Each structure stands twice: as C-alpha cells, then as structure tokens.
C-alpha cells in the first residue's frame, strides 16, 4: 500500500483521498466509523471540496443529498453522493452539523441538481442551506409545525419508536388509532396553538418569486399572468402542480409544487423492520415495483453480505427488464395522451403492458405491488403454468415474439407521425452539460447524449454477463426522449431473451433460511439500480438492530423534475405539458 509507484494508476478512492484529505489538511477526514466509508468535511469548506471533486476529480454528477439525525451523538449529518459520468464507484462526503442550529453552505451554484434535494433536507430536518436561491418547504406545506424526520419529532399516531408495536393489539383486539387522538383524526397541534389568533399561509410569496417578464423587451406588450396547472389536472400524471408565469402564451417561469402525495415513506420506513419496508418500496414508483424491490434488496444485501443464488439472479434481471418495458410502454402511451392523441396510443400500450402484468401476477401474486424480492433471493419461483401455458414457454414467447411485435407496432404508428414530429422535435431541448449539472437521470440524460447507465457504469446483479447496448440520442429534445424509450425497450427484450436462454432450469432461489426479522450489521449502504426513470438509490443506515436507523430513497422522478423549469422557459404553455410527459414522472416516487 505505502510504496506505490506514481506511474501506476491508483484506485479511485486513493486518488481522492490523496488529493482532498492531503490538500484540506484537517478540514477533510476519512470516515472511520465501522461500516462507513467516504469523507467528513467541515461545513465551511464544503463548497471548496465540492469544486475540487467536480472540476479536478471528475465527480460531475451529484446523485443524492440527504440527511441523517444522529440524536445520540447530537449532530445532524448531511450526506452527499457524487459520481463520475464516465462510470465507476461513487464517492460520498458528509457534513456534521449542530442539531440546534444546523447551517451549511448550499451546493446549488456548483451542482444545480442539489436544488430540490437540499429543499427536502431543509423540509425534513430543518437544515438551513446558506445561499440557496429558494429555500422553502417542498414536500410539506409552508407553515407546517416541526421537522418530521428528526428522531425526536413524533407523528400524531405515534405509538412506539420501532415495530413491532406491542400496543397494536391490546388484549387481542385491534385498536383504532383514532380512538387515542383527541380530534379523532391523524392531527396534532403544537401546544398553545390558538386557532382564533391565526391566519393560514398564502401562496403570495411563491407567486411573487416568479420571473414575470421576458428579457428582450422587444415583443408586443402583454399582461403577465400566473396560471396554476394542477394539482388536479389530467395532464400532470397525478397530483402535481406547476405554477406558470405567462407572457401571452409564452412561459417566462415555471415552479413545480409537489408533496400532494407525500406519504411519509421515510418516517414509516424508520419505524418498520428491514423486511417490512419491502412492500413499501413497491409503492414508490408504482409502475416499476419489481425494480424498486431490486434496489432495496441490493442496499440491504450489501450490509448483510449475503449472496444471491444463480437462478434468483437471472429472475431478478428478467423482472427488472420486463418492468422497464412495461414502464416505457406506459410512458409513451401517456406522452401521446399529452400530445392530444387522447387514449388511442395509450390503449395499445396498456394492452402490451397487461401481458407483462400477467407474468408478475402469476409469479409474485399481484399485478402491481409485487413485493417479490428478499434479502438473499426471491420470495418464490415461477409457477408451472401461466394462462394455461407452460410458464417458461409463455415468457419465452413473450420476449421473443409478442413484445418485440408490440414495440414495432408503436414505432410504426408513432415515430414518423407528422404531428408527433412537429410537436416534439426541438421542444424542451436539454444540452448534455446541463443534463449532468442538474443531475438528470435515465432516459432524460441519455437522450441528451450522455452514455451513463448504472447497468454498465456501476454494474450490479449479473448485468455484466449480458450483451446489450446503452442507448443514446444526441438532440435531447422531447422527440429523442420518446425514441430512446423505444430503443431501450428493444435492448430490454434482448436482455430478456438472453436470460431465458441462459437461466439454469432448476436451483435455489433463496440463500439461507427465510425469516421475518433480519439483523443487519451496523453501517451505511447506498444501493442503487438503473430504474426505468433513472438512478434509484436507497441510502440505508443500520445500527445493528432489526430496524433501519435511516431509510432514504433517492427517487429519479423527483430529481429529474429539478430541470423542468429550465426546460419549459420560452416555450408555449401547451409544450409544458408535453415536456412534463417526456420526463415521465410518477408521483408516488416524486413525493414519497
């Protein structure tokens, strides 16, 4: 270790530690806690360290920002994960802050993709990001009392710190939580809250923060108006709100407002046992439950150090790729809906998706919420029969014939369609530098020409055994984001075909003994997969007990929305709907 020749290429982590630990003497230290890795940075040096990471070491892609409340050590830690878009393992840096007055410089000027994620940490932990351009709550509403993810904050239905709750079944009978609450509802007010001397917060400051004029000032003078699209609007793919400032019909500013489906995955996840979180991951991106399971299983397996049997590895890849096809089918169908081809293309897409759902239902037991993967394998093997046919034969036929045909059909009807072309080409252009800076992921990033796909960049499972291409397109407009989804579906069928060719006919699908309560060694782990929408990461901190101390989801849809405002500026209001459709969000994952 010590006498390395300078001409030898050093492992990435040594390059980093040589350049930042040595350079910022005393300000940057390696994280030496057991089970942890990365570096702890003093808060005031964070922007300098981040600049070095980005500009000199090539960590140009900030994938995740999150917080952890270490209440016993009396500090809040902000954790940053950064990656190189050329591939390889990521790096994490941490900042430890005082719980009473947590302040840290913002990273938005260096990594604009930190914007929404920093707001989330502010919302959940009360960490103040000094210099942040728009530091307001993002998932909860302005005026909400408290910072929910702090360990000493208790929800209205609080029973105990961690499950299983002994209080759930007093005397063998189920108890309704409403009975214990004075209001009979899931609400709780701060002590001394006086409803008679109180006025609700308004959205005025949000509306005032919008940029109302176009910069050139040459065009015809028109009144500037602010339009709310959503949260109940057919084109927002769920409960999502865009506050749009318009000059005539042109968008001068757009501010996404979210949190209308904030279901508190992380707070509930920290009360749950490790395994209890598996069905909750289904409900994050509810179109892709299989690959959500995959990511979480990887994160916990990394901590536990268990191996996954061969056959289970193949089935995992098969399920993840089928999920990708079904998600992209849905995305394309509903992009066309947004373009005004109301329902017809979507019906074709849903028809193809139903075939995949049949596979999921027969194997996992549920069409959408599969809850299929376990730490160390799978819940169950394929059934013998599927729709009256032999299962292996059914899936082989599906990936060899029926799905490719369905993809060709969509391609045939849509790709050269004149309306699709004129509405999509040149709309919502995202240049590659900007895509990386804003931490865009998945098809959004690759349509801009950046060949970054975790399946090859930081390979997981057994993806290194398959022959497939990482698709890229070069223009980064809505049309390319449509095309890349067609390309990716074709690549996914190729992977599925190889799986069905190579999968061992028999074998274990679970290593070890199935158990409800797994004890996970202490430490941190960041498990991630290339979900159909981008990088899905799980940051899990264990203290060696049966419950995760911290359970954070780095959701691709949420981070991809950071760039939405930039993409829409200067376009017509009707294009905002199409651009949103081309990003392909699922609100369960945006809001968690």
């Amino acid at each position, binding site marked *: 270790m010590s006498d390395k020749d300078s001409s030898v290429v050093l492992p990435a982590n040594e390059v980093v530690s040589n350049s930042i630990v040595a350079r910022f003497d005393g300000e940057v230290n390696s994280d030496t806690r057991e089970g942890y890795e990365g570096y702890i940075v003093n808060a005031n040096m964070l922007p300098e360290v981040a600049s070095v990471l980005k500009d000199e070491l090539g960590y140009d892609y900030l994938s995740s920002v999150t917080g952890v409340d270490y209440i016993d050590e009396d500090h809040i830690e902000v954790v940053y994960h950064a990656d190189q878009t050329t591939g390889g393992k990521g790096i994490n840096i941490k900042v430890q802050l005082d719980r009473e007055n947590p302040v840290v410089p913002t990273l938005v000027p260096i990594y604009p993709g930190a914007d929404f994620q920093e707001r989330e940490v502010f919302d959940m932990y009360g960490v103040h990001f000094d210099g942040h351009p728009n530091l307001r709550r993002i998932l909860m509403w302005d005026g909400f009392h408290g910072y929910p993810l702090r360990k000493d904050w208790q929800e209205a239905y609080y029973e105990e710190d961690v499950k299983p709750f002994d209080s759930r079944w007093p005397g063998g009978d189920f108890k309704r939580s409403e009975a214990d609450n004075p209001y009979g509802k899931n609400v709780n007010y701060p002590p001394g809250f006086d409803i008679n001397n109180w006025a609700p917060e308004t959205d005025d400051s949000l509306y005032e923060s919008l940029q109302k004029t176009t910069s050139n000032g040459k065009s015809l003078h028109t009144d500037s108006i602010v339009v709310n699209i959503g949260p109940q609007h057919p084109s927002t793919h769920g409960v999502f709100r865009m506050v749009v400032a318009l000059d005539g019909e042109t968008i001068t500013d757009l501010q996404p407002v979210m949190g209308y489906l*904030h279901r508190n995955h992380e707070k509930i996840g920290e009360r749950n046992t490790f395994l209890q979180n598996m069905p909750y991951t289904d409900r994050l991106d509810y179109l892709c439950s299989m690959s959500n399971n995959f990511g979480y299983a990887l994160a916990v397996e990394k901590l536990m150090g268990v191996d996954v049997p061969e056959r289970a590895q193949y089935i995992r890849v098969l399920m993840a790729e089928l999920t990708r096809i079904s998600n992209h089918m849905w995305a394309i169908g509903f992009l066309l809906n947004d373009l005004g081809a109301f329902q017809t293309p979507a019906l074709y897409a849903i028809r193809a998706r139903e075939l995949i759902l049949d596979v999921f239902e027969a194997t996992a037991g549920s069409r959408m919420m599969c809850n299929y993967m376990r730490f160390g394998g799978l819940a169950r093997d394929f059934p013998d029969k599927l729709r009256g046919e032999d299962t292996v034969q059914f899936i082989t036929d599906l990936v060899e014939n029926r799905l490719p045909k369905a993809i060709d059909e969509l391609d045939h009807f849509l790709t050269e369609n004149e309306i699709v072309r004129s509405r999509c080409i040149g709309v919502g252009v995202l240049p590659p530098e900007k895509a990386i800076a804003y931490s865009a992921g998945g098809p959004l990033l690759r349509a801009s020409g950046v060949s970054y796909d975790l399946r090859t960049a930081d390979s997981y499972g057994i993806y290194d055994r398959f022959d497939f291409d990482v698709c890229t397109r070069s223009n980064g407009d809505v049309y390319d984001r449509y095309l890349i989804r067609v390309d990716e579906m074709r690549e996914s069928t190729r992977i599925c075909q190889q799986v069905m060719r190579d999968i061992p006919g028999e074998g274990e699908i679970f290593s070890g003994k199935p158990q409800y309560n797994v004890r996970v060694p202490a430490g941190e782990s960041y498990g991630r997969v290339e979900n159909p929408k981008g990088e899905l990461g799980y940051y899990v901190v264990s203290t060696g007990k049966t419950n995760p101390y911290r359970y954070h989801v780095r959701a691709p849809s949420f981070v991809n929305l950071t760039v939405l405002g930039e993409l829409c500026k200067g376009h017509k209001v009707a294009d905002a709907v199409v651009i949103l459709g081309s990003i392909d969000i699922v609100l369960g994952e945006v809001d968690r």
Partner: protein
Amino acid sequence: MNNELSNPDIPVPSELQSAVTITSLDKIYNWGRRSSIWPMVFGLACCAIEMICTAASRFDIARFGMEVFRATPRQADLMIVSGTVTKKMVPQIVRLFNQMPEPKYVMAMGACASGGGPFKEGYNVVSGIDKFVPVDVYVPGCPPTPQALLHGLIKLQEKIDGQSLKSVRWYGQETSEAVPVPVLGPDLFDPRQHALLAQQAGQVKENSESVEE
C-alpha cells in the same frame, strides 16, 4: 325497449311490446342514471393506474356505461378517490367534491382512501376520505384489481336502483350543504372542529400556567 324496465303486473299486448313499456318513474329515472355514471378524471396514486387499466380495452368499463371520464367535476357523477389522501391534497379534494353537481357519488378505492391503508400512521396522511366527504362504496385492496373496481361499480348501480325520487336529497326542500374546506395550518385543520380545537388549546394553556405557578 329493455325488458328489465317493464312491469310484469301490467301486461302489454304482444304486438305493442316492441314499442311500449309500462314502468314506474323511479325505475326509468334510475335506469338512466345507473347506465351512464360518468366518473371524474381524478387519479391520486397507485390505484389510479388500476383505474386506467379498468378503463382500457381488457377490462373495458364501457360495458357499464362509465367510459366517459370527465376532466371537470361539474360534469361528473362519480368521484373515484383512487389513492392515498394526504393532508396537503385534501382541501382540493373537498373543493372538487363541492363543485360536483347533485346527484353525486363517492367511491373510496383501495385501502388508503378507505382508512389510510399502509400509510395510515404517516404524518401527512388522512385516515380515509370518509373523515371529510361521505362515501357510498368502499372497494378493498391495495390496489384493488380491475375486477374488484368493477364489482364496486356494480354495487353503486345497485345503490342507485334502490333510490326513489320521493326521498332523494337533491329534489328535497333543503339545499345540500357544501362540506367546509379544510385548512392547512401547523397541521391539517377541519373547520368543523373549530370549537374543539379552541377548547383543547385553552386546556394546554391552563395546564402550562398552573405548572408555572
């Protein structure tokens, strides 16, 4: 004419049966309504995906006369609350409900809308939409399969069949009251609980004062 309408007690001569049906006003009124329930385009969460699948070709909600999803509450008969109701969203849901014209129906689709579901203890989750608006049909499941949703819709049709012009609220003397829209404060605040909340805060104040003394 549809045979299900005709009253067997009043026979119609066979030569007229193709053109004449004798039935009650209630029956034809309900027949018309049950066969054209227009739901609102209103998706909250995961259940909305299954709702869309129910509307698609494989399960085909059009068989029940319900395929006309309306994007505005003012043209809708049925609100399918398809997903987790959060505190941040519930003011909008109540407002949408108030904007629907009578007769209107609400279906709680899935575990979350019925009672909070797996997310019940979450700090931003409402324990079922029935805490705020009246619900006609509950459909269990997480999410309910399309078949379960269709079963719920058939149950709603049965409920409509049982209603009578004499007693329905929208033709009665009283006007139907709008549900007070909840407000977002330090936590979700239901205007109907104003007195209770004022009293609770008063109690806390008294307690803290007595401690100081």
